[in-house]
Structures are given as C-alpha cells and as structure tokens.
C-alpha cells in the first residue's frame, strides 16, 4: 500500500530526522541570518551590499529583434545549438495595444523561457536560462537596450539574481503581462501553457 511505500522510501532518506543539521542558534547560522537581514528591502532594495552593483531599471520595449547566432529564431533556419541567444531591444513597431493575458494565448508563444538576470549593466542584461518552455535551447540570453525606446507598453525591472519569465513572437518580446518577474502565478501559467516542457 502507499503508506507502506512511503515508509519504505523514508528508510532510504539520506537526511532522515536523526541526521544532525546546523543549529539555527549556532554562531555561523546567526552570522548568516544577521548578514541576510542587513540587506535593505523595499522600493530601493538592491543587492548593492553584496554585489557592489546598483539596481538598474530597463524598460523592455515591445519590439525586440531576436537574433540567434546570426539567424532569426523564427525563420526556421536556426537549429538549437545551445549557443548564447542575443535579443536586441528594438525601438519601433511597438504593439499598439495590450491583449488581455490568458493561458490560451500564452500557449501559442513560439519562444518562452525562464531565466535569471546575472548581469545588469550599461544597457545590457545578461540572463542565464533556467528553463526553456518553447523555442530554443540557449543557455544564455543577452538583452541589448536601445536608448530612447518609445511607446513602452510594459516594462520589466531587471535585478541581478532575480528570475524572469519571457515570451516572444515574431522577434518581438511580449509585454502586457506575458513577460515579467517570475512570480508563482506567472510561472504556474507558463507551466499550464507548456505542460510537456
């Protein structure tokens, strides 16, 4: 029965309750917690204390040209190679209006991935891809901003170490809630839209 199976699985737990862990009151644990709580949170929160870098706001224009090793991702000519993917932040042809977010629309996105911002500086965001839902296998994606991008529909505030869910269609990153910080709600929607990924 399942309880029997559960009990049997517990017998091979390498960290069963008897195995000791670091006490939360130990000197090293206390230091770790104090260092963590020393990080400022709130509107101006940043990892500056740890990384020496400030936060940088990058508005993602609706129009992005996706270039994959010199080939357009959507041309059908680019085979997944795992090579870094470069996304140029375009400045024109922004979507005129937002489509209401739905999982049904999300399902049709040819490019969808979850990634962590590892470097945010000088108009460039480097993301390490954590998971491809659709349309690629690059391990790294770079967003190059174009100064003065007009007609911003949605914006994403990139912070190093934070995770983002991003979709794109026809070389255009979708704003309007189809790209943004990887909240549990958005991730759940992606997982529902791309169940086989």
């Amino acid at each position, binding site marked *: 029965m*399942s309880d029997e*199976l*559960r009990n*049997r*699985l*517990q*017998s*091979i*737990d*390498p*960290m*069963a309750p*008897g*195995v*000791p*862990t*670091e006490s*939360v009151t130990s*000197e*090293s*644990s206390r*230091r*770790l*917690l104090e*260092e*963590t*709580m020393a*990080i400022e*949170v709130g509107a101006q*929160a940043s*990892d500056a204390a*740890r*990384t020496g870098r400030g936060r940088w706001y990058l508005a993602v224009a609706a129009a992005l040209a996706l270039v994959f090793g010199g080939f357009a991702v959507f041309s059908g000519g680019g085979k997944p190679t795992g090579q870094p993917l470069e996304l140029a932040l375009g400045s024109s042809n922004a979507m005129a209006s937002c489509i209401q977010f739905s999982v049904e629309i999300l399902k049709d996105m040819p490019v969808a991935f979850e990634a*962590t911002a*590892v*470097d945010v500086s000088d108009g460039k965001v480097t993301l*390490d*891809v*954590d*998971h491809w839902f659709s349309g690629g296998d690059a*391990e790294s994606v770079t967003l190059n901003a174009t100064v003065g991008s007009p007609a911003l529909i949605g914006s994403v505030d990139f912070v*190093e*170490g934070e*995770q983002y869910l991003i979709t794109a269609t026809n070389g255009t990153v979708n704003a309007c809630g189809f790209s943004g910080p*990887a*909240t*549990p709600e958005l*991730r*759940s929607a992606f*997982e*529902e839209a791309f169940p086989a990924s």
Partner: protein
Amino acid sequence: MARRERFEAVVGETYDPLQRYLRRRASPPDAEDALAEILLTMWRRLDEMPRDNPLPWCYGVGRLTLANQRRGAGRRAKLMNRLAMERPMSEPEPASDQELEAALADLSEDDQELLRLWAWEQLEPREIAVALSVTPNAVSLRLGRARKRLESELRRKNHPRAGQEEAYGRKEPQ
C-alpha cells in the same frame, strides 16, 4: 522590528527542514550556498510568503535555487558573497535498501522528485503543488503514477519478467 521578528520566526521553523531538503539534492558546499541564497529570497519576499505553512513555499524557492546552481557553475559566487559556514555538516547516512534505491533511480527525475517530496519532505499533494508551482490535481495524478511506476520497478527487479509491460515510464538508459 516586526519584519525581523517574523523572519526569525519563519527561519526558526524552516531552517532544519530546508537544510535536509538541500542535502538530499545537493553536495554540502552547494547546499550551503543554496541555503544562504534561499534565506536572502525569504527575507526579500517575506511579504509574499504564505503566513500559514510557509515551508512548501520555501521548498519552491529551493527548487529554483538548485536549478540555477545546476545551470551555471560559478554563477552563485557572482550573485552573492555568502558567509561560509565554519564547520561542515555531517555526511548523510548510506542507504540500506539498495533495491528501492535502484528502483527509484530508474524513474524519471520528475517522478523521483515527486516521491522525494512526498516521502522525505512528508508533503501532501496540495503542499507539493506549492513547492512545484503546479495545481494540486496535477500533483495527485502525477504522484499516483509515480507510485505505480516505482512499485512496478520494484516488482520488475524482484521478478525480471513481470511488470515489463508497466515499465513505460522508466528513464531511458543513458
């Protein structure tokens, strides 16, 4: 301060199970790094954390943190200057039920993780759903299938000819 107090209270409740969660899935140095990173996320996202039963949510943070670690070696060192713990945690005890360990290892990684969360973290489907960011119904279905596959693997190992037709969910040989 209220924020500090709440964080301390949550950490008091989750520090031990989080360490166990990490050590079941990562080497000691990676587990230490991940723990520091998870604590930072918990601190920064304290307001998003469920007040009732925050542990599955914390496991969800742990899942993503470990996924990040596996993605890029050395990246975590760039992201944060962790404070190294001064004394290493003890080594996990070797498993005694080798047949079960082998059967578990033959399942897909998704099946293994569901079974670990169920048996080792002792989570119920609705809690596993929080940790994996999927619906409870999906967890119940997948967990049921994972249990059947594990049982099938165990039968197959005991009687190599039996259970063969049920072994469709097994991991392909590398």
